């Protein structure tokens, strides 16, 4: 009897390809997925810049302080984008998964999973940008408190960055020390 289960049919069709081709195709999907994290810092920095422009328009005398706080906050908010780039480019040019032995489907899924995990980088990017924007706004309103505002902003940003780093650790584990292959 002909198999009518679409998923089984799809997997059988997938396994009809060469092993390396399946892994490389999954890597391509994973690379694209990892790059989605680059959106986060873009939104965050845009928000910070908008708040900075607002703060300067309300109180032009604080322009220097507002720009300084925004500059420092926006520079830290970029980190998630760099981490996603690193993972994507390692997958493209230093792919460690093609030469792995074990189930091709597991390795291919791990490549997609590594890319998927990097999407978490959107969160820190937007969150850090939001923190930078709000700090910029408050510096415009209360320039005397600049140093404590900046310190509080960085404390928040450093905590917000942790999820992005966890995501990168999982992506690196899936690529370089995949524990799933040994379970087969």
């Amino acid at each position: 009897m002909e198999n009518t289960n679409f998923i089984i049919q799809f997997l059988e069709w997938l396994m009809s390809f060469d092993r390396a081709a399946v892994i490389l195709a999954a890597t391509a999907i994973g690379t694209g997925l990892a790059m989605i994290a680059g959106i986060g810092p873009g939104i965050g920095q845009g928000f910070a810049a908008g708040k900075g422009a607002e703060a300067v328009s309300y109180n032009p005398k604080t322009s220097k302080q507002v720009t300084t706080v925004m500059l420092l906050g926006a520079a830290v908010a970029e980190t998630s984008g760099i981490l996603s780039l690193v993972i994507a480019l390692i997958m493209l040019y230093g792919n460690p998964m093609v030469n792995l032995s074990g189930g091709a489907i597991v390795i291919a899924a791990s490549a997609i999973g590594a890319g998927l995990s990097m999407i978490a980088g959107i969160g820190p990017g937007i969150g850090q940008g939001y923190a930078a924007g709000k700090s910029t706004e408050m510096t415009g309103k209360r320039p005397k408190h600049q140093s404590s505002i900046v310190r509080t902003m960085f404390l928040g940003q450093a905590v917000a960055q942790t999820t992005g780093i966890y995501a990168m650790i999982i992506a690196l584990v899936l690529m370089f020390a995949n524990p799933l292959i040994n379970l087969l």
Partner: protein
Amino acid sequence: MGSTLDIQIRVAKGVLIFNSIIAGIGFFIFNEWVPFITGLLFGGIIAILNFRLLSLTLEKAVVMAPESAQKYATSRYFVRFLLYGVVIFISIKANHINVLGTILGLVSLKLVILKTELFNDFQFFKNIFKRKEGK
């Protein structure tokens, strides 16, 4: 223009000092230390230049209308993002540059900012954990 030049110089000095320390450690850890230090230098310089680019963008953005400042800052971020991509790509492709050194160099600027602006006053952290019930 140039209202944040003092902070740019301070961060650039911090990056150079930090990278010198990492280069010293790398000298003892890596057998092939020249590519590592080249990568560190490459990443560090690009990080400083991108920080300068960011400061120019934001100095321009603060005098714009909020909506156009948002669009301008976001579009410029993607230009810098592309630059980072090119730098990491070159480091992966070139044999005489260690990619780990480049990544460390790129991230060093963020670490320096956190060090100089967050961990410079221990009283701030003491106040966070100080119990106030007794008062």
